[in-house]
């Protein structure tokens, strides 16, 4: 059963993931209605706590919360007291004192959502922590693949780009392997973590080999502003070697789809013509993101810490044991 917080795909079991995806599928129906709102989280408060700028993910969580009738409050770095040097935990505790029912956190440092989950009363959803995990992105990617392919088990998924610095890659590796896909990763050697194959994937430095026979080709965003010169000589060289275009896509399966978490550097990770048209499904990913985040909010928002049956049960049995099993 899904725990109180959603911190990473690594913590989720296959059946947890399937429950989330199944719930998201039903949430898609709400998005197709004329009145796109249900009263499920009426009177509940969602705080979007974003220490790192994000338009897409934050907007997606905000729309998801509003479609479930939650009150959504956006707390972002520019408007916060972070600029006044308040510590992370003090900020978090201040927000907690306002009794939110769920807190969505993004931070540039890995592990921050986990730390917050330890101190906050409200459940925490990780909306991206450093280069660690971005669970809602991976889940919406899985939802999109199921929508397109009808399944994940047995598919071949090639993830192309900066694997080492990508939380999207990491979460997708956990997710797709847990659901039985064969996952391959490819990029320049400087962008492949040395031990990446210990996650159950195959690593390639040759794009063609990586996408040979793939059902899904997922291009990652290159953080050009941060990485040029450090990890690859030039953007143009990267685009020539690892940028996906129709020519290179010929090596994948005929009905392969192309995904990208956005925002796209046009002509770098993806050729122009692929950004706008099938087989790329980028806008479907965005659309599915709202339904998927509705599912996450539905499953965890407002679940109080003390009602966590797992912690309850273990405390009770420990006490019983100490009392001599009465």
């Amino acid at each position, binding site marked *: *059963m*899904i725990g109180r917080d959603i911190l990473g795909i690594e913590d989720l079991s296959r059946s947890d993931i399937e*429950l989330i995806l*199944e*719930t998201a599928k*039903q*949430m898609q*129906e*709400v998005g197709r*209605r*004329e*009145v796109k*709102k*249900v*009263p*499920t*989280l009426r009177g*509940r408060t969602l705080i979007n706590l974003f220490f790192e700028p994000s338009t897409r993910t934050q907007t997606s969580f905000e729309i998801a919360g509003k479609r*479930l009738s939650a009150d959504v409050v956006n707390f972002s770095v520019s408007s916060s007291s972070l600029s006044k040097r308040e510590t992370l935990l003090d900020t978090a505790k201040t927000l907690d004192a306002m009794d939110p029912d769920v807190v969505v956190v993004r931070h540039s440092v890995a592990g921050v959502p986990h730390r917050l989950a330890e101190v906050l009363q409200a459940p925490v959803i990780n909306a991206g922590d450093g280069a660690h995990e971005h669970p809602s992105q991976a889940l919406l990617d899985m939802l999109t693949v199921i929508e397109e392919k009808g399944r994940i088990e047995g598919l071949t998924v090639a993830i192309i780009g900066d694997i080492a610095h990508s939380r999207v890659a990491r979460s997708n590796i956990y997710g797709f392997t847990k659901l039985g896909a064969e996952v391959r990763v490819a990029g320049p050697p400087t962008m492949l973590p040395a031990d990446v194959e210990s996650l159950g994937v195959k690593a390639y430095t040759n794009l063609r080999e990586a996408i040979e026979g793939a059902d899904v080709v997922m291009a990652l965003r290159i953080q050009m502003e941060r990485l040029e010169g450090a990890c690859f000589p030039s953007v143009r060289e990267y685009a020539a070697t690892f940028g996906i275009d129709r020519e290179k896509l010929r090596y994948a399966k005929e009905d392969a789809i192309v995904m990208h978490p956005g925002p796209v550097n046009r002509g770098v990770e993806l050729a122009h013509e692929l950004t706008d048209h099938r087989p790329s499904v980028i806008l479907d990913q965005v659309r599915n993101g709202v339904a998927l985040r509705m599912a996450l909010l*539905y*499953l965890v928002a*407002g*679940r109080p810490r003390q*009602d*966590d*049956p797992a912690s309850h049960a273990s405390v009770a049995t420990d006490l019983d044991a100490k009392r001599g099993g009465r």
Partner: protein
Amino acid sequence: MAHSDAPPDAAPHVRLTDVADITDVVETDSPIPRERTILDDQAIRRALMRIAHEILESTDDPDRLYLVAIPNGGVPLGRILVENLESLCGLRVPLGILDTTLYRDDLTKRGSRPKLRRTEMPSSVDDRVVVLVEDVVSTGRTIRAGMDALMDFGRPSHVRVVALVDRGHRELPIKIDFVGKNIPTQPNEKVIFRADKSEGDEDDEASGVGLLHLIVRAGGAS
């Protein structure tokens, strides 16, 4: 007014002997929950034919009928009602499926959230005579949720409710318009409607509905 094909003495009331048996079950100390069948397949189908007659009697404008089934139990019942109505008046009444989970009033009181079921509303409910179809009605809370959900899809001219079983214990002022059978029960008993899948029912829609059962299970944990 009965062009019902059920004889008048098979009225929708449980016989006294049935009630006595249910009570027996509750008082048993058996660790295995005992079940007893209250309505078998034939009895359920007879009740649904009578209800189809009653639905037609209740409206002057069958063209505006729109059945909306509450999953899971309402769906097979709704399908049979659509067939029955078609056989009686030659009209194919649309059938929607409406999950009420997102409209429940107890969601935030529970530790974990119930699984969502599907919703498929094929056409607008505006100005339609909507008939909600549910298997077992008790507290009335699901019907309340169903009415709220319905209103999000438009403004029906009327809303009616079909229940295969009304087991009592109402907590809200909800009235059932068409009842298959009233079954007095103890609060801790469970009334369970089951529809077996008929052959080739993988993809629901076209194929028929398999055997139907209505059972009462003695009290205790669910």
